[in-house]
């Protein structure tokens, strides 16, 4: 899973503050040289405040997306059609939890604790990928999320494996290794219905694809000319490939997969462009995107309420475990 949040963040009160000292200017210069040389930055290395803030925002929001992303699919674990599909879905949802944990750990190296990040999520200050604010209405939604949502996530995430911030890059390498299973199991599940299913099941798959296609294209973030933070992200080696380039790559890869599956993508303007050697696609409803990012998607309130409830209802478990650990430590010391 992935968050497009870095790009959805509106400009935060101006640009970098004026440098304070000659020493800091030297550090900044050394940092820029390291970035230009393609070196990795480690947690304890000097970094500009804005670099730290931008990364913390992006990694924590990416982590939140993984955790919130467990909800739409978790919704179907008890209703999976077979034991095989249930075991697969359980493993996938567990992976998403794991991905969230890798990412929280990477973000924590920047000096903010996991509980502080969760507090930002629960209070609505931090965002997560808006794709998870859409509902999973049928079993076909689960396969479609694997195929399209995770497919879009892979496109987005692979370049981050080369992010200049090493703890984030390492977490992404681990995540990308596991993500391919997510996409393939989703496609496999849809294929089973399209090849051997009833007419009703085939229609269910088409309906799911119709609902998820456009939100998936939005996952790549606003068009390049409306993405104010992209240039800085590129400069810092946090972002490697532009939103529109990734989106085009996703469309090009998906068209043939849709043909093999036997579904149509819900875009009358989708056609092969001989001149560009790419698939042209219709215009995206960015008003909808901003509405969902802004909190008015179909499931924003439900998703956040479930995370807050899980956190609050689990408080006694966290406290009891800590009390037990402290008591055992005292006993050992005595």
């Amino acid at each position, binding site marked *: 899973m992935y968050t497009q949040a870095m790009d959805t963040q509106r400009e935060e009160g101006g640009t970098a503050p004026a440098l304070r000292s000659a020493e800091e200017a030297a550090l900044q210069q050394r940092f820029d040289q390291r970035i230009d040389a393609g070196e990795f930055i480690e947690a304890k290395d000097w970094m500009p405040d804005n670099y730290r803030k931008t990364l913390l925002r992006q990694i924590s929001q990416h982590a939140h997306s993984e955790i919130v992303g467990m909800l739409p699919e978790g919704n179907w674990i008890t209703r999976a059609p077979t034991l095989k599909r249930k075991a697969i879905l359980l493993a996938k949802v567990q992976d998403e939890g*794991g991905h969230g944990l890798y990412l929280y750990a990477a973000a924590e190296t920047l000096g903010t604790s996991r509980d502080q990040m969760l507090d930002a999520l629960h209070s609505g200050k931090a965002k997560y990928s808006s794709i998870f604010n859409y509902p999973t209405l049928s079993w076909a939604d689960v396969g479609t999320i694997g195929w399209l949502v995770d497919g879009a996530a892979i496109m987005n995430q692979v370049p981050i494996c080369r992010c200049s911030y090493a703890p984030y890059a390492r977490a992404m390498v681990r995540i990308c290794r596991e993500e391919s299973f997510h996409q393939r199991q989703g496609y496999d599940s849809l294929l089973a219905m399209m090849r051997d299913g009833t007419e009703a099941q085939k229609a269910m798959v088409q309906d799911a694809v119709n609902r998820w296609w456009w939100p998936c294209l939005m996952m790549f973030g606003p068009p390049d000319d409306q993405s104010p933070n992209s240039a800085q992200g590129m400069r810092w080696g946090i972002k490697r490939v532009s939103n529109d380039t990734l989106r085009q790559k996703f469309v090009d890869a998906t068209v043939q997969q849709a043909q093999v599956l036997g579904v149509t993508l819900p875009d009358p303007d989708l056609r092969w462009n001989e001149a560009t050697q790419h698939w042209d696609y219709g215009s995206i409803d960015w008003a909808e995107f901003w509405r969902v990012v802004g909190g008015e998607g179909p499931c924003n309130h439900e998703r956040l309420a479930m995370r807050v409830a899980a956190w609050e209802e689990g408080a006694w478990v966290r406290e009891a475990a*800590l009390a037990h650990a402290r008591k055992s430590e005292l006993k050992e010391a005595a």
Partner: protein
Amino acid sequence: MSTENEWPLWEVFVRTKAGLDHKHCGSLHAADAKMAVQMARDVYTRRQEGCSVWVVRSDQIVASDPSDKDMYFDPAEDKVYRHPTFYKLPDSVDQM
């Protein structure tokens, strides 16, 4: 917000297979050592990535200072004679 009631942070090291070193692979929060080992298995070895895990409290790790990196590690730079390739031997015995 207060962080005193957060579970402590642990660093996780995994041995991928018998005969290899334990290698650092990430970190996690756990209330105590036993829970840290169990969680390390679930978080970092879901696909048979390991046959053994170590966990150690992150605040127990002592590290070199990155700002001293040059001063600390560069003295080895000019000691080329520590490498076997420094010595030019006759061809007939160069496999030594």
